[in-house]
């Protein structure tokens, strides 16, 4: 029986733009503008979209690393947005994050043992030093490093190894959910495969659920069971992996899929070239955010924003042109 681990309803995050003499609020950047999705236990969800579409902000708002403006995040039955400080701190044991840049997300002054051991100390998981060392060694082995690496410092490691350290730190408290914010995009091709395989292995070993944020559709498709496509702060389509690839409904998803270059010289894709740039999230177009670049644009698109509608088979689309969603 599938069990919901996470349920996000109408999550919003607006950043205010301050300006003028008295730093008055001049407007808002609607980074996340009403996002709803769910995640089942043991499942991996991919969030894809281009830069500035709000995928990272969504992840951070879920963890309350930044306070969401509005909305409801139910994690394991608890409303994350309404929790008092101490309870939120306890809840963070269960939800961890792996960041994009393995060079910037590790403290250069602390040894790997200290970095991985810190969450253990914060939550008082280990009663004494030797237990802690044992646990760190075990975590290092789990991510494909050696126990003696605990005495080294981040600069002694390559990018891929640093990302392994970041994953070990996220694993330290046995979380239920790990959010990967572009976990492999800073890595070389041959190293990417190593980290993707590692993420899949530990998911199996620890029974984890993932939210993987990436702009690389091939990576997301490889790791995730379900994929949600974001555009300018909203989810425009979400579907199981194969369904999304074989049967994309939203014009933006179709364009995005067709834009990915095919590493096979025999395949010539029919490419949908989108004209123009992504509009600024501080002044999003009215109605459907995508209508300014859409080929299937109708009059209604500039007036009303379409809502995400179930078209069957766990496939949700927000588009006026798709039958059944108006």
């Amino acid at each position, binding site marked *: 029986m599938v069990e919901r681990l996470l349920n996000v309803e109408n999550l919003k995050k607006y950043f205010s733009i301050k300006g003028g003499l008295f730093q008055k609020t001049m407007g808002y950047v609607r980074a996340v503008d009403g996002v709803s999705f769910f995640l089942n236990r043991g499942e991996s969800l991919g969030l894809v979209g*281009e830069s500035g579409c709000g995928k990272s902000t969504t992840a951070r708002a879920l963890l309350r690393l930044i306070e969401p403006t509005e909305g409801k995040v139910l994690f394991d039955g608890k409303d994350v947005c309404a929790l008092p400080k101490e309870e939120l701190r306890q809840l963070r044991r269960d939800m961890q994050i792996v960041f994009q840049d393995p060079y910037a997300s590790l403290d250069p002054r602390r040894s790997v043992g200290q970095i991985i051991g810190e969450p253990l100390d914060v939550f008082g998981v280990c009663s004494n030093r030797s237990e802690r060392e044992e646990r760190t060694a075990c975590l290092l082995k789990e991510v494909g490093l050696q126990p003696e690496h605990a005495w080294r410092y981040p600069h002694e490691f390559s990018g891929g190894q640093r990302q392994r350290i970041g994953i070990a730190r996220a694993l330290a408290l046995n979380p239920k959910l790990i959010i990967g914010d572009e976990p492999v995009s800073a890595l*070389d091709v041959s190293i*990417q*495969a190593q980290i993707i395989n590692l993420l899949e292995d530990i998911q199996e070993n620890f029974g984890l659920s993932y939210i993987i944020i990436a702009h690389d559709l091939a990576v997301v498709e490889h790791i995730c069971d379900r994929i949600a496509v974001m555009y300018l702060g909203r989810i425009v389509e979400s579907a199981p992996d194969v369904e999304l*690839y074989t049967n994309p409904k939203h014009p933006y998803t179709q364009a*995005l899929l067709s*834009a990915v270059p095919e590493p096979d*010289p025999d395949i010539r894709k029919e*490419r949908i070239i989108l004209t123009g740039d992504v509009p600024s999230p501080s002044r999003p177009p009215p109605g459907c955010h995508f209508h300014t670049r859409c080929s299937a644009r109708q009059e209604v698109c500039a007036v009303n924003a379409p809502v995400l509608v179930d078209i069957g088979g766990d496939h949700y689309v927000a588009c006026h042109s798709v039958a059944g969603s108006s």
Partner: protein
Amino acid sequence: MDAGNVLLDVRDLRTVFHTFDGVAKAVDGVSYQLKEGEPLGIVGESGCGKSVSALSVLRLIPDPPGRIVGGEIFFRETNLLDLSDSDMRKIRGNRISMIFQEPMTSLNPVFTVGGQIAEAFRLHQGLSRQEARERSVDALRLVNIPAPEKCIDQYPHELSGGMRQRVMIAMALGCKPEILIADEPTTALDVTIQAQIIDLMLQLKEELGMAIILITHDLGIIAETVSRIIVMYAGKIVEEASTRTVFKSPLHPYTQGLLQSMPRLGDKVRVGRVRLEEIPGVVPSLYELPTGCRFSTRCRHVMTICKQEEPRLEQIEEGHFCRCWLTHQERQVSGDG
């Protein structure tokens, strides 16, 4: 091969960097030829020397710490390495141009877009301010910038990433170069914008008939744009062949590993859920290169000889070169029989 066809002939190029940690041989004996109008791709991971080899062609290596210590680069009949600085300047941006990866950092933030494009026309073609401005507007129109008359007076920060890369291309193509070197031209861009830029580059290549050297780590882009591929690893060429051959029947274990380690869109539909093949280990540091074959530390097929002696880049079939003891031996065997 028609010798008159060769536009650029790089012979045994060696570029090193003197640093506190020692001498890094970033490019260590690279030779290749580029024909007129040919799109050539150079792939490899970070630190393999692909960018340095391209920068060396334009003599843009910062000296110190970098230095071209050996080889020849023939552009038509002239060896670029023999030219004086002022003669070299006449070639750069005029007959050979370059597009860089970061459109944000490679444009000057304190000059208008128009001023930066016009500079090439004024320097290389001696045009007047007014003429250069008109030509700049034309160049911007060529790269499909909407309202080029307006864009020309804007500063780089007012443009989006995709627009800036278009400006870079306009600048590079302004003087109708014979060779365009594009160093990761779309890496900093989003996929839909990347598709626009690649499309634009291919279309302009057809119109202007220039040769392209495309440097990238993205095998997908390379498959769609070039006809011949050079694969580099730790400062050396390990394999060179036509695009089809590299993708369909690669010979070097590194090329094979690279192709297999990459997740492909639609794999789940075609073959279901599979584990990615990974290349174990990491790229060796340029300061502590392994003896023998540089890939021997990560290779699945490593043999004793691989760790002792470096294989040569050998022609296996017409136009297909590979630097590996395995293919060398196979050739010996088939040669004997």
